[in-house]
């Protein structure tokens, strides 16, 4: 091959001094100069760990297997049930929360509020103060949703009595869960816990949940992939914009619901509730993504990122080949547009399991297909396309099932490769809502943030080979 080089045109990738590329070009050679910066934020040791993984056959093979499992997943909505019954290994006094593990005394404002709300909702305490004491007492177990196959937006608090969506990957049989979306305004996921919030949660448990379950059973399950694919053609990216997907779901649910035994007045209130919430589909989008990514999880040597999640204090990722390990860094702030009356000073750091959508190649990764989103998160439609294009450089491949019309129907960039993030320094883009830092105020804006590189640096340094 050394001799082959002598017979070829010299084509040089130049890393470092740009003048070397110039002189190659001036003397008739070809050179591509890299916009290089030290990988792994300049940490030499991690840089070397990364180098050994680049194009390593074991990793490539593992990633292909993991990616194939992830892409071929067929998430289907199976029904709605109480969390305690639906989620295996959920014990009676456990509260699930978003993001990587976190103890009570480190939780951010919205999560604290949501935990207190959940305790009151479960009736484990009678008032705020005793709920707070109970939470601090150690009698309640806190666990990340992700540890039990679940995902929840914002604080992501799921308590045993709450109804949860059950989504099954028909291809491999793995199951994921998510709570039901409460709508906007004063809601538990932003930390609100006054009686109106608890009342709505009770209604969701007794009316909405059973009605949804009846409708889904009537339909014999709902294919979620096709709804997402269709919604991407209708201007959603299925993280921050779910208007089309929610409508598509509504279209499926309504006739089915009418064919069930659910009382007429409940049907009316349920349909009104869904119709009034453009984000109703978000939790299903998340559960679908979780089911797809879990299918790709657990492949030895794979650097496929299978979860990105935030608890409002830390941002954490998991990787297919490193099991249950979390790689964490401080949660970043979100750069975005604020609702009237709020500023960045009101914002909590990035929060929620909803970055599972980006992990699966939609949300911020599919922004190019959702030009309307820029009115919400800032920027121009060109910026949105540029974000999507940039993400192709850090994914293992594309999702041919999720095509993006403004990008000539190319598949969405899907399946983050931790190696590529570290090597290029291109951090995954996340398109997200911004919670008020204090419990119960609600959403104060939306915008764009990036997953912290530090998480990926730690991931590639873990024992992969």
């Amino acid at each position: 091959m050394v001799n082959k080089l002598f017979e070829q045109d010299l084509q040089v990738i130049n890393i470092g001094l740009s003048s070397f590329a110039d002189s190659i070009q001036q003397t008739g050679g070809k050179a591509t100069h890299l916009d290089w910066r030290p990988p792994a934020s300049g940490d030499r040791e991690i840089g070397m760990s990364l180098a050994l993984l680049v194009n390593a056959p074991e990793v490539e093979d593992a990633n292909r297997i993991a990616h194939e499992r992830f892409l071929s997943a067929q998430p289907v909505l199976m029904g709605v049930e109480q969390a305690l019954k639906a989620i295996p290994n959920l014990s009676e006094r456990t509260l699930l929360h978003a993001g990587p593990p976190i103890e009570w005394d480190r939780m951010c404002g919205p999560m604290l509020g949501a935990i207190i709300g959940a305790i009151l909702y479960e009736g484990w305490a009678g008032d705020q103060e005793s709920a707070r004491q109970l939470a601090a007492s150690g009698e309640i177990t806190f666990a990340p949703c992700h540890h039990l196959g679940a995902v929840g937006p914002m604080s992501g608090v799921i308590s045993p009595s709450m109804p949860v969506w059950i989504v099954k990957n028909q291809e491999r049989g793995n199951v994921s869960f998510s709570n039901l979306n409460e709508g906007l305004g004063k809601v538990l996921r932003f930390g609100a816990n006054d009686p109106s919030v608890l009342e709505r949660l009770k209604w969701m448990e007794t009316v909405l949940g059973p009605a949804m379950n009846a409708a889904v059973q009537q339909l014999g399950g709902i294919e979620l992939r096709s709804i997402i694919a269709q919604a991407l053609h209708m201007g959603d990216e299925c993280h921050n914009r779910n208007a089309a997907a929610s409508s598509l779901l509504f279209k499926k649910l309504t006739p089915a619901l009418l064919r069930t035994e659910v009382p007429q007045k409940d049907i009316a209130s349920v349909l009104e509730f869904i119709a009034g919430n453009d984000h109703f589909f978000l939790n299903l989008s998340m559960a679908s993504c979780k089911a797809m990514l879990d299918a790709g999880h657990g492949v030895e040597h794979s650097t496929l990122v299978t979860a990105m999640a935030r608890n409002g204090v830390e941002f954490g990722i998991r990787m297919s080949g490193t099991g249950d390990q979390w790689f964490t860094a401080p949660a970043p702030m979100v750069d975005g547009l604020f609702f009237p009356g709020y500023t960045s000073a009101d914002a909590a750091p990035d929060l929620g399991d909803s970055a599972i959508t980006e992990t699966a190649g939609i949300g911020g990764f599919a922004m190019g297909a959702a030009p309307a989103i820029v009115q919400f998160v800032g920027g121009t439609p060109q910026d949105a396309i540029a974000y999507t294009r940039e993400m192709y450089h850090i994914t293992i491949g594309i999702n041919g099932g999720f095509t993006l019309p403004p990008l000539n129907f190319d598949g969405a960039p899907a399946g983050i490769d931790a190696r590529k993030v570290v090597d290029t320094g291109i951090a995954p883009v996340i398109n997200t809502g911004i919670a008020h830092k204090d419990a119960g105020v609600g959403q104060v804006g939306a915008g764009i943030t990036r997953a912290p590189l530090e998480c990926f640096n730690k991931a590639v340094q873990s024992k992969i080979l």
Partner: protein
Amino acid sequence: MANSQRMIKNLYRDSVSLMQFSEKLRALDGIQQASAVMATENNISLLVEAGLLATIVPPSPNDLLIVVEGEDDSSVGAALDQAEAMLKQKSAETGEGGVRRVPPRSIEMGLESMPAANFALISTPGEYAAAEARKAIQLGLNVMIFSDSVSMEEEIPLKQYAREHDLLVMGPDCGTAIINGIPLGFANVVRRGDIGVVAASGTGLQQVTSLIDRFGGGITQAIGTGGHDLKSEVGGITMLQGIGALTADPSTKIILLVSKPPSPDVMKNVLEMADQSGKPVVVDFIGADPASITSDSITGVRTLEDAAKASVNLSQGKASGEFTGNLPDQYINVAKECAAKLNARQKYIRGLFSGGTFCYETLLLLSETLGIIYSNTPIKQEHKLEDVWKSREHTAIDLGDDLFTQGRPHPMIDFRLRNERILDEAADPNTALILLDVVLGYGSNMDPAGELIPAIQEAQKIAAQAGRSVVFVGSVCGTDGDPQNLSRQEALLRDVGVILTESNAQAARLAAAIVNGRV
């Protein structure tokens, strides 16, 4: 009735669409017959037989021939135009509409934008160079690591991996290479020819390739190995691979090897491989006894100049030549004239070098006749200068040493340090002669003469004010193809009184003769 034909260059379509295409043409207004076939000889004669083609046209099997027959010339012409337009219609490109593209940030991204890349040139800060090199070889690229301060512990696995995958790792600390005529790093524009070079030293490689050019020869490849390659630990992996590649390269007729003396085990392997190459080999293990190297197929030489000369001689079908090491006749008078200008206290040579190998070669040559030469990089440790900023007796300094380059560009680029030192030496009443190297080529300063001349003139003024005159001797390493142009640079330096020789070795010998003439 009219018919006509048109040839469309290098245009391929599915045969299915070609059939459909012929049908479409037939359906056009006023067209009776149409055919779109590959323009092979047999197809052309078939069309002639079918009466669709009036005369035989020259075949071109990779092109598409469209033949139509219709009512009149205008309908036939229109049909052909339409046919061509239909064939060339490309699927509408997606408008990029102001969407920014990400410039390549990693080697893998670089490969995405330049898939046929076959080489990576790495000049990052040393601490990151090994990792980048690792990625490059794992991605199937040959590598030159210009960066220095990469440890041998990092170098060895890189070279072993590369050797297993038949890739070349030049360096670390490989300043110079010329591959396929393209200068890489600090390198000169050298005529192409039949001499293949492998060298462990960057300036050594620049000197031999420039001199080969000056002597009328040319090179195939100039491969750098980096300074550690010939140590026992590394085992000369790159040098051996280089010899192997040049052996297999049909364009290379002569092989030239340059290095400081390798460790004995490596030397043995290198010479063995050189011997087995079946090609004449010239070897300069700078500082080693040429006799210990020379064999039937190997010519051992003492200087870089002799190495270049011997290679060019062999390339021109002559004997490699005899190298006496004597000062050429034309310099003997020059030496006398210069010596005559010096006073009794002016006894010492002060060499100020930008190229490490130039300094090293000078130390070797001067010590042969003058004894002890002090340096920051001496041959023997006991002759190391205690204060590198101050010369004593005979001194030769490598200003490219890490000591001097901390936080500033290399002295081949930035002349400030050397210019200051020239003035210091000129002010020393014991200085007889200032010996310089000047390196041209890509990577170096774009006008070294212009940088040096003010300092030289100032130095001459300082000496004159003290009633002395200081002799400047030097050599310019470069070619007329270099962006700085060798002839022009030499002329400028001669204009201010610098005595220039063709090579560094001659400059050293001339310098020795001048001060010897005094002593």
